């Protein structure tokens, strides 16, 4: 008992300075942010629940840090397009179109290569951010895990007939159930990233067999096109569980099924561009979005949250379905090494046929 008390005391002595440092760094950041009045956040329309969520996020953000900042959300730009634009703006010496940037792995890696992201000791400043959440150390924080799954309209395709893995999509017998009703994303990036899970030859064979059976190409999150029956099955949805939740909110039934083991995932991260007009508010916003308060709002309205935060839907989905998601480091390394241009080109050519 005495040893245990001694251990507790020593741990307290050792930890106190680091907590104090973190508190000090956060306090300094909050103090600096008070001189910045507005945070401009431009992103795609559904980001964290879009316009529906922004007033709540603004209130909770100001409450958490004792601020009176205005959060202005501008919907419209896609992640890669905005990343390219912010980088171009940085190189030209003008303020970024968005004070804080929400991007996927490839966009973030490219921006890091272009040295357009501010360096921040995220886990040092915010006590609730763990090093694991910093996908690109000192640059980005994972705030939203999009589990890339197959999705199908369960009112039109019986679960017994539905695919349970990607291989089923090219099974000629099973494929009869969705023949002429199969949608795929407009871009084959999901197949390129599949090479991190499957051998390249297997990916190429899969692409060759799948391509002729694809009826149409649609954008991600076009929930209504599955709900109306225009298509019954989507080969890959950027965030299947989120789409299923959106469909449920609308009174429809969409089921998300991971196509591979581990499941594919889009790790969407927040970062602060070096040319942010309100860099301190932006850093606080990043910290806020991964806090329990920020995650709760984004999860309940936008169905977007991190699998690393306990209690979020995606966290529960992985636990309930006993599914593991692909290691974010694996994807980060893939893009940091420049991806696989040869494979990308091969897949693009196959999918064009």
């Amino acid at each position, binding site marked *: 008992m005495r040893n245990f008390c001694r251990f507790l005391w020593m741990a307290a002595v050792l930890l106190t300075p680091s907590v104090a440092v973190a508190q000090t760094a956060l306090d300094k950041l909050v103090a600096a942010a008070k001189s910045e009045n507005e945070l*401009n956040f*431009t992103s*795609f*329309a*559904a980001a964290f629940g*879009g*316009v*529906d969520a*922004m007033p709540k996020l603004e209130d909770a953000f100001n409450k958490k840090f004792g601020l009176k900042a205005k959060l202005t959300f*501008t*919907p*419209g*730009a*896609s*992640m*890669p*397009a905005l990343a*390219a*634009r912010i980088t*171009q*703006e940085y190189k*030209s*010496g*003008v303020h970024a*179109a968005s004070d804080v940037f929400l991007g*996927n*792995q*490839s*966009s973030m890696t*490219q921006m890091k290569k272009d040295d357009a992201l501010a360096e921040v000791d995220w886990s040092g400043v915010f006590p609730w951010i763990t090093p694991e959440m910093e996908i690109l150390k000192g640059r980005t924080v994972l705030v939203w895990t999009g589990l890339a799954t197959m999705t199908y309209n369960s009112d039109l395709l019986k679960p017994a007939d539905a695919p349970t893995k990607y291989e089923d999509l090219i099974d000629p017998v099973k494929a009869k159930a969705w023949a*002429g009703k199969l*949608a795929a*994303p*407009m*871009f084959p*990036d999901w197949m390129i990233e599949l090479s991190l899970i499957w051998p390249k030859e297997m990916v190429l064979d899969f692409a060759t067999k799948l391509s002729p059976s694809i*009826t*149409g*190409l*649609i*954008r*991600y*999150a*076009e*929930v*209504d*096109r599955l*709900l*109306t*029956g*225009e298509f019954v099955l989507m080969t890959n949805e950027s965030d299947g569980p989120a*789409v299923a939740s959106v469909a449920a*909110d*609308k*009174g*429809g039934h969409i089921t998300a099924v991971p196509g591979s083991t581990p499941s594919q995932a889009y790790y969407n991260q927040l970062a602060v561009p070096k040319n942010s007009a309100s860099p301190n508010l932006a850093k606080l916003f990043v910290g806020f979005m991964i806090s329990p308060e920020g995650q709760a709002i984004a999860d309940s309205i936008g169905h977007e949250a991190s699998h690393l935060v306990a209690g979020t839907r995606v966290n529960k989905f992985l636990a309930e379905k006993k599914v593991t998601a692909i290691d974010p480091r694996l994807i980060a390394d893939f893009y940091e090494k420049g991806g696989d*241009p040869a494979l*990308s*080109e091969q897949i693009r050519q196959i999918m*064009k046929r």
Partner: protein
Amino acid sequence: MTQPEIAAADLAIASPPAWRAVAGRSLVPAIASLGLVMIVSLLASVLLRSFGSLESATGRAAIIALFSDAEYYRTLLDTFYFALLTTVVAMLFGVPIAWFVERTDLPGREAIRVMMGAGILIPGFFTAMGWVYLAHPRIGMLNIWLKDAGIVINIQTLTGMGFVQGLALAALAFVVAAPSLSAIDSTLEESAEIHGLSLVNRFRYVTLPLVTPALMASALVTFMVALAVFDIPAVLGLSAKILLYSTYVYNLVNPASAEPLYEIAAASSAPMLLLAVGLSVLYYRIIRQSSRYQVVSGKGYRSKLTPLGARGRVGGLTFVGLYLFLVLLLPLLLVAWGSFLPFFRPISVDALRFLSFNNYVGVLTPSLWTAVGHTLIFSVVAPTFTTIISVALSWVILRQSRAISRAVELIAFLPLSIPSVIFGVGAITIALAIGSFVPIYGSLALIILVEIVVRTSVATRITGSAMVQIHRELDEAGAVFGLSTGVRFTRILLPLLGPALAYCWLFLAVLAFRELTVPALLVSRDNLTVSVYTWGLLSLGSLGRASAVTILVLLSVALLGAATLVVGRLAVRVRAEGRS
């Protein structure tokens, strides 16, 4: 002296001081030059960018990467077929309707004119979605009804897309052709009638030849616009794996994860530029002998309507009614229906239980009000400047020496066939280059400037085809009496061009209102527009909310239009009472 010569003499007596004469002389060419500089700057920045090399993937020059892509050639062929079909359908509907409205006594002409404009207000992606729900091989209501007959209509084919796009662009053909039809001297038709020509033959042998330049302009403009349209090919084509030029470019600048390939997108504009040059030369040849088509002169000009007779009226109303049903009523009905549903369901009694106002409540956010404010400014300022520049350009094209007019004509025509997203790329390049001393980047002014450049071609066709019918003798009479260029331009030409300019402005305002591609590419806090906001909702999968925004906006525009009409009539009455 003829009437205009007397008027010119009166104006000459009250001629302005010397400095105003100089300003008047140089004002029109200066405005035209400004327009040309804007077009050339943007085109140059796009072309320069296309010669940039690719840092990723292949490392080849953008233009080489583009021309080694077999899909690009297939896409171009499909695009030509699509544009040709679109033009045929648009002309088949747009020109006869313009004739009915401008040259005949068809009842309800004013209402038809308004509805032709209203049809353009509905964003193309809604028209496309409407046709998906109507004629999709699986979920289309028509196909559900025709199931037992074994007939399947598939709108998601190149031909289907061309038909839908043609219907949508008939309004453009209408707007370009209508001013010229309205300006025809009716004495020519009356002479033909006296000589025993039937209504059809009068149209064939008198009216049609007189409006040939306007019709050619209308067809060329429609064709060029069809080459670059985005929304209908995006909704109907992409989901059926049919790529057209605009969607091909869209894929290049909006990849899912890789970097946007702006350089290749810019390079893709080069063949379109060449095509624009070719069509411009063709157009120039048609109007070279423009004096053959001048129908408004200073001597006894008169415009009178042709009586249709009872059978003609029924036929005319049926034709116009069918068009308006397909283009206006049907999509509007489906948009309205969809705005009350959580997700789209075919119209049925069973679906009534899902109707609610939730979508309307959900869209009333601060972002929408901001977008409405920006859209109002954008839709008023851009068309106003575009019209001013286009009139000046048309004047230079038609009234200056052949060498100058040919060059100006050529440049003014170029932007037409290039998707506006390409100009957006050029605008980003220029705005960033001058960003440190001209803070235009990310502003509403930037998208207004790009809109002016993009629309100048269409506007110049409209103003030019109207101006070609105004005889030179009016201008010459003014010059004889010592009027400066500016005074002749503002006091003689502009009043005669009034209806055409009103058409032009209104049409441009509608196009600006629904413009999506450039505002979406350049979107920022300071220039968010309603179309970008609506497109964002569609990207979210919120078809219901996007429909609700469209209905709210259309209702507001209708109320505004009705209020303007009432106020205008009251003003006329008050003025009349004051006089009496």
